[in-house]
């Protein structure tokens, strides 16, 4: 054991392998590594447990001095087999699984999945459900972008950015909890519509939220946008031009930072997005700073959409009328935050055996979806979120494949960071904003 009083730090542990010596550096002992005789090129393993890799992402960096010669990312540490699990559950239960993929944007997963199932079924959710989906998606987009700023700021050492970002995100989560019953993993959007309608007083809460965010979002400009250190860390860092984006499949803010205003909400509108008045922010610098600015601008646009959605909400059903698809449940949230309306249970139990059987069959067995396959894509905070759903005509999916924007965008990390400084890798990864729950699924 090393003497604590000794001024020299603990030496890094050395192990000789066929590939050369391997050092386990834990901090404070870099001098050992520098002093040790080694070739110019060292390979550094970073993560998967590292505070700056944006989740359980492992980076393998080949360095010459401080310059990254090669960067590779290793993923799979959060793989939970969600796609496989979906094949063993009903189409409705699938919502509960997919919402857990990109856990910062759960409503997008739910909506994209449900739009796919609805396309397979040949039904369309009622208007009130569509508007509510838009409202929830834009709320989620704000929350997701705030986390991106917060964690990105933390990774770059801007800890005030983190506390501010998470504070505002808390507002989003409070509102989502009020509207859907849960902060995350809502399972609120269902094939055919929504699980239930918004609770009373939702409009005031949403309007208040917009007011609060309108007053707080400009703080980010004061805190980060013009701040010299923030700019120096991000400007001209993580450069990826348009051709690189297209070749590597990058979508979302990465693609828009390279000058292409590609946004699913505009080019292939779903849920009635064509009715809303909003801009798609675009930049041409194609660097981390442009992506940061786009995310801030997108939050302002989302607020605009939320306001319009509040105005568009008209009374009406939130589930398709087809009783072969719509669950008969009339849910009320009990004191424990969950539950079913007891009155409704009494009604079902009392009125007829057939409706009880129907209820039971629909919930346990699920509804049959005609055979076929569809691809439905939405614009998630990270880019094109696509669901490839295959049905063989049964009550459970034959295949659920998710085109996760985090997964695809993470491929751009080497292109953004090779040839740059090792510190810029962190900025590049933060600007990609991968959510490992989505990457690994």
């Amino acid at each position: 054991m090393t003497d604590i009083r000794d001024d020299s730090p603990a030496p890094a542990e050395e192990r000789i392998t066929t590939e050369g010596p391997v050092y386990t550096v834990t901090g404070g002992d870099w001098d050992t590594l520098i002093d040790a005789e080694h070739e110019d090129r060292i390979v550094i393993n970073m993560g998967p447990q590292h505070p700056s890799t944006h989740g359980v992402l492992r980076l393998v960096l080949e360095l010459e001095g401080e310059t990254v010669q090669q960067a590779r990312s290793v993923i799979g540490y959060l793989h939970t087999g969600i796609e496989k699990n979906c094949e063993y559950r009903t189409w409705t239960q699938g919502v509960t699984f997919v919402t857990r993929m990109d856990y910062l944007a759960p409503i997008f997963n739910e909506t994209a999945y449900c739009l796919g199932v609805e396309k397979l079924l040949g039904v369309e959710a009622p208007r009130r459900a569509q508007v509510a989906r838009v409202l929830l998606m834009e709320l989620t987009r704000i929350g997701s972008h705030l986390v991106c700023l917060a964690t990105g700021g933390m990774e770059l050492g801007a800890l005030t950015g983190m506390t501010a970002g998470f504070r505002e995100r808390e507002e989003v989560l409070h509102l989502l909890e009020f509207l859907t019953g849960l902060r995350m993993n809502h399972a609120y959007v269902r094939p055919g519509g929504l699980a239930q309608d918004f609770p009373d007083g939702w409009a005031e809460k949403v309007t208040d939220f917009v007011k609060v965010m309108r007053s707080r979002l400009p703080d980010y400009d004061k805190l980060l946008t013009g701040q010299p250190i923030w700019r120096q860390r991000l400007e001209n860092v993580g450069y990826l031009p348009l051709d690189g984006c297209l070749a590597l499949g990058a979508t979302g803010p990465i693609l828009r930072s390279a000058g292409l205003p590609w946004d699913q909400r505009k080019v292939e509108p779903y849920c009635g997005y064509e009715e809303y008045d909003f801009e798609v922010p675009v930049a041409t610098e194609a660097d981390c700073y442009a992506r940061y600015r786009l995310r801030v601008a997108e939050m302002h646009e989302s607020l605009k959409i939320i306001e319009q959605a509040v105005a568009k909400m008209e009374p009406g059903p939130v589930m398709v009328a087809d009783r072969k698809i719509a669950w008969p449940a009339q849910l009320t949230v009990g004191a424990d935050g969950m539950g079913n309306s007891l009155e409704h249970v009494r009604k079902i139990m009392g009125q007829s055996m057939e409706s009880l059987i129907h209820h039971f069959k629909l919930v346990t067995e699920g509804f049959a979806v005609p055979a076929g396959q569809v691809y439905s894509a939405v614009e998630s905070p990270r880019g094109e979120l696509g669901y490839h759903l295959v049905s063989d005509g049964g009550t459970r999916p034959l295949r659920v494949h998710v085109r996760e924007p985090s997964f695809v965008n993470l491929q751009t990390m080497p292109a953004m960071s090779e040839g740059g400084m090792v510190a810029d890798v962190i900025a590049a990864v933060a600007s990609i904003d991968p959510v490992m729950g989505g990457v690994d699924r």
Partner: protein
Amino acid sequence: MTDSGERKTTDGRPAGPADDTPGTGGTSKESAERTGGPHSSAQESGADAAETGMVPGSGGEVEQTTDQAGVTPEGGTRTAPAARDRQGMFGVSGSGDTSGFGGLRLPGYAPAPAERPYGGWFDEFADDFAEALLERGIPRGAVEQVTVDRGEITFYVQREHIVEMCRTLRDDPALRFELCSSVSGVDYGADVDRRLHVVYHLLSMTFRRRIRLEVVLDVDDAHVPSVVEVYPTADWHERETWDMFGVIFDGHPALTRILMPDDWEGHPQRKDYPLGGIPVEYKGAEIPPPDERRAYS
């Protein structure tokens, strides 16, 4: 009728023998009725042409429709991409399914070939596509079937031509599919001929069009040329498809596992791979499959 002779013409690819599943022309339900249990197993041997020949009209129907299609094969011996019998419903065990409704296996999804006109931009696109393929010397038979379903167009293509076809789709000024959204696999189940499908979703940002390419594979010969050289984004998609379905993408720069650990055995998203019940290294513990965890009876 057509089956016996034309199957031989397509034997350039190893998957050829299992190529013809009767009942292509029909809906999935019809095909299932026609495809008796013995059919599917007989076709795996690839020998029993007489038996498949007994199915009336299926081959001819396809031929007719695909000829009209323009980009479809001369031979027209396509092939339900998937077909299976309906079987079992209750009291099924050993499947890891705890839903209480585990046993029902429906007939496989066998998409019907589309007939002209496809509607919308599909016709114009199919013409442009056929022309571009001709220009580049890709045989007409490279597209085995065209299916239009729920407003989406699917081209079932021969694997030999997938790379050149993608290059054509990307580079031809009338097509311009700049972005490969996704490459993934689908396993239609153990008792289906050519059960593995590799699905490519392409997006043309110029024309705002999406198409789907599908390559149908025999599970014993699951090789597809890699499209990474055309669409670099396919790199991770193909690694995932290899990882999950065991499809080997020939020519991929580094086809290694991506989501599962490097030393994992098997391909988890195949239909014959169980859900749960895999021994895990956790203090010697082994997690039983969900249906064996506890008994409520």
